């Protein structure tokens, strides 16, 4: 039977490096793909991957999960990607009033696909909740926890995004009447 994240973290806090290795391999690909989405660059995504798990290690022996592991990792990956991208390109990313924007790098989107083209045209915050909900399979509550915003805000952003997708001829077909 597969050990739970909580059990692995408990072992890691006691100095079990094999438990860390298991946890790393469990979330490595997700963290890497997420970083790839943010940065659009495989080398930078690997840097983000490494820094993210260095951050996890820095929390030991006081690493505690209060939510799902992905919910814990998402803000770290986002923050590190944001910093690395900003540092290496010297182009300020879009900032808004309440939180840094999350721009999916357009290089990772297949512009030929209907969904890719429509998603690219959505505001950054709407892109983010759509990706978390339908690519990463987060619940509304998990998205809220990851972004540090109320669940109502997440629903509002999802609602706005879905409305646009439903009105857009290229993505209208994904909605039942």
């Amino acid at each position, binding site marked *: 039977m597969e050990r739970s994240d909580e059990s692995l973290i408990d072992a890691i806090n006691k100095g079990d490096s094999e438990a860390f290795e298991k946890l790393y391999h469990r979330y490595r690909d997700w963290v890497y793909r997420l970083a790839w989405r943010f940065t659009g660059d495989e080398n930078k995504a690997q840097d983000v991957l490494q820094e993210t798990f*260095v951050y996890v290690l820095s929390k030991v022996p006081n690493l505690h999960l209060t939510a799902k592991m992905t919910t814990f990792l998402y803000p770290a990956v986002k923050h590190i990607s944001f910093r690395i991208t900003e540092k290496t390109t010297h182009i300020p990313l879009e900032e808004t009033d309440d939180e840094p924007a999350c721009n999916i790098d357009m290089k990772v989107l297949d512009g030929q696909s209907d969904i890719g083209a429509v998603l690219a045209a959505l505001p950054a915050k709407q892109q983010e909740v759509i990706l978390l909900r339908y690519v990463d399979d987060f619940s509304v509550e998990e998205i809220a926890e990851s972004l540090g915003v109320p669940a109502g805000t997440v629903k509002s952003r999802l609602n706005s995004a879905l409305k646009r997708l439903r009105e857009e001829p290229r993505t209208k077909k*994904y909605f039942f*009447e």
Partner: protein
Amino acid sequence: MANFEEQFEDLENRLSDGFATGLKKAIKQPKPVSPAADEFIIGLAQKKLRRPSRFRIIRWAVPAASAAAAILLVAILNNQPKQALQPALVKETRVAGFAREDIDRNGQVNILDAMKLAKGLKQEQKINKEWDINNDGQVDGKDVDVVAYSAVRLDKGVM
């Protein structure tokens, strides 16, 4: 329930599974993570996590050892001229006011210093002689190990 919440739930109920599938397909896949990246992070974890188990001994042993070390240090210092010790220590451990392990010169020794040194070696940049942290005449992976160890060691003190 707010109006937009009802609207959202209605819209999501009308959304077909094909949307999520199509969205996942619309995102290109990167090449796999390199084995070197895996090795770096796993190696680092082994270094950091090895020590708690090594020190997972009777609790009183740690303060007792610290006290013994302090007594020994006082005894040694009392038998050494201070001026003869201090300049050598400074020369060996600090460069331009920074710890030698502080590769990025930001005033802190952390794991980013080890990563920067490892990356510098990997990219075969012009090798900085100051990066010969272990004083063996070469700048190589052993120096990265020393920096990584300094970054994650329990006392976290930078000499």
